[in-house]
């Protein structure tokens, strides 16, 4: 592939990433506003908007992995594996904290936000690992 074409593709992917990330940030805010209406339709719409705002972000991520080369795929495979294991550990720790009655229940928003953060950190860490001189 021509280097300019590759650059254009990377720029397009970057804008898609920024757009979907903005949507990911705005979606929950709009969903919370809808929840304040206290109607069944409003609550239903809040679920659709809140959960649906993550779909474009997931789609962009999947397309980045699919279009990426063997290194990009390895990078995401390793980081997702690390994030999965770290998320499982987080769940186990929180479960035991809850069973020991230090907390009553775990907030699901905290849980998915934590998993997302772990995924992001795993991606950064994996990228740095491969870039570091042996």
């Amino acid at each position, binding site marked *: 592939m021509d*280097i300019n074409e590759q650059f254009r593709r990377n720029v397009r992917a970057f804008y898609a990433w920024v757009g979907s990330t903005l949507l990911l940030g705005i979606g929950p805010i709009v969903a919370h506003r809808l929840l304040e209406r206290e109607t069944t339709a409003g609550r239903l719409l809040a679920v659709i908007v809140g959960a649906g705002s993550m779909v474009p972000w997931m789609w962009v991520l999947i397309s980045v992995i699919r279009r990426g*080369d063997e*290194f*990009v795929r390895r990078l995401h495979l390793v980081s997702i594996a690390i994030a999965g294991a770290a998320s499982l550990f987080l769940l186990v720790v929180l479960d035991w904290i809850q069973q020991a009655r230090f907390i009553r229940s775990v907030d699901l928003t905290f849980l998915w936000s934590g998993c997302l953060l772990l995924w992001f950190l795993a991606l950064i860490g994996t990228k740095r690992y*491969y870039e*570091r001189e042996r």
Partner: protein
Amino acid sequence: MKNRLRDLRAARGWSQAELGARVGVSRQAIIAIETGRFDPSLPLAFKLAQLFGLAIEDIFDSSGN
């Protein structure tokens, strides 16, 4: 796996992005190969070897794992 990719690339005056474009991978892939932390697939190793006109074992050193 240790390799001579950085030296070979530098000898031709190519950037990492340029080398990546020539073999159809990203600049990040070339960086990771050059650090020795990412071993390329066999098809990519063949592409690199063909590009530099060398055998795979002339670029990659399997003894230095």
